[in-house]
């Protein structure tokens, strides 16, 4: 196996033209896969110190995060702390500091795990990805990026350059919970995130996204539709919880059963909605 460290995006693009080239950034996923023989690239192309793919800035009111920026840098950044508290919260719980200081936001997405924690807040924020390839640049909404476990919309020779995260609509509240056997450093059994804007008990807008409950992290749009524009009555909460449980397609695996995951997603949604109502009454 060869190892190259391109100095810029032009060198990166040409390195990715070679057959069997694979990107390594923090290495927290790919080194485990290499060791178990799950991947066998001919060349590892290291982007972990590629400045073109790193950094966080505000561009026209949206936060642009370089795909190779590590999770520790992101959650400590003043712009992210101020405007993307949900992303901060999720990244803090994504893994221990040793992993977070290597793992990148782009890498977490490209790894395309059904349990990719960072995908949940990015789905809720309706983030977009700037992909760069030999044919030029293209933009993709994050919910069209992860296609199946381990599979993304990246074409041969393409890489993720930037993740653009718009602020959530003003006046909303955010919720996230990840269920696992250990609080730190755990692959989620199931996770749910919610952004919601309420006027009184009426839902002005709502976005729901779940992790580890389907082949990919996903928006729970049927439950959103039930909640949208209505009042948070007992009946509506019950209907939304049922819709959320029905709209996921989890599997039985070493971490939990499918039926447990369905139950957890519904329970988390019910808990969030009741919290949102209680907070309003305070």
């Amino acid at each position, binding site marked *: *196996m*060869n*190892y190259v*460290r391109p100095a810029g995006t032009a060198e990166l693009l040409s390195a990715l033209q070679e057959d069997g080239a694979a990107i*390594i950034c*923090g*290495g*927290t996923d790919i*080194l*485990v896969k*290499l*060791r178990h023989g799950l991947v066998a690239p001919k060349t*590892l192309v*290291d982007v*972990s110190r590629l400045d073109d793919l790193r950094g966080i800035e505000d561009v026209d009111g949206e936060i642009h995060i370089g795909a190779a920026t590590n999770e*520790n840098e992101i959650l400590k950044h003043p712009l992210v702390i101020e405007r993307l508290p949900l992303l901060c919260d999720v990244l*803090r719980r994504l*893994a*221990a*500091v*040793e*992993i977070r*200081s*290597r793992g990148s936001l782009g890498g977490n997405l490209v790894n395309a795990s059904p349990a990719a924690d960072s995908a949940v807040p990015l789905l809720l924020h309706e983030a977009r990805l700037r992909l760069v390839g030999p044919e030029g640049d293209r933009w993709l909404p994050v919910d069209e990026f992860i296609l199946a476990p381990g599979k993304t919309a990246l074409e041969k020779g393409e890489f993720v350059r930037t993740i653009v995260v718009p602020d959530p609509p003003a006046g909303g509240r955010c919720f996230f919970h990840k269920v696992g056997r250990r*609080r*730190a*450093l755990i692959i989620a059994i199931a996770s749910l995130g919610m952004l919601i804007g309420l006027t009184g008990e009426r839902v002005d807008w709502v976005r729901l996204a779940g992790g580890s409950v389907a082949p990919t992290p996903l928006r729970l749009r049927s439950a959103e539709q039930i909640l949208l524009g209505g009042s948070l009555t007992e009946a509506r909460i019950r209907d939304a919880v049922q819709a959320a449980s029905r709209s996921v397609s989890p599997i039985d695996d070493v971490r939990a059963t499918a039926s447990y995951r369905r139950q957890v997603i519904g329970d988390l949604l019910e808990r969030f909605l009741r919290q949102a109502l209680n907070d309003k009454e305070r």
Partner: protein
Amino acid sequence: MEVQFSLNEKTVSCDVDPCLRLIDLLRDELDAKSVKEGCGEGECGACTVLLDGTPVNACLVLAAQVDGSCVATVEGLSENGQLHPVQRAFAETGAVQCGFCTPGFLLATVALLRENADPSDDEIKHALAGHLCRCTGYQKIMDAVRYAAKLSIAETHAGRART
């Protein structure tokens, strides 16, 4: 391929295979045996080293990736035959039993106290969350980190008084 980096403040140059992990280079070529391999997947923290001051799992970094960087292991903690305050704190509070996890805990604690001289219990737990210990039940390790913070603060004050 050739890599050059600073290991415990000494420059080292090595010819490495591109697949070689940092942990293997440190243990097998550079005799830094304090770096332990537990899980090999970043779950246990036993192989933690400081890479440019930040704790990382040496089992998840390629040797090639540290070219031009500074790596610190427990071998570099003591000075002039004197244990580092964090090492003293672990020894004196009984936070070490079999010792396999200890180097990782020491380096994570050093990194924590550099950033936050007087951490709360929650901050200590958060900083050490990536480390597993199967002997101590963690209470003695918590005691050790609290004591290390006191020792470090005392030494800083003593150092200032002397100069």
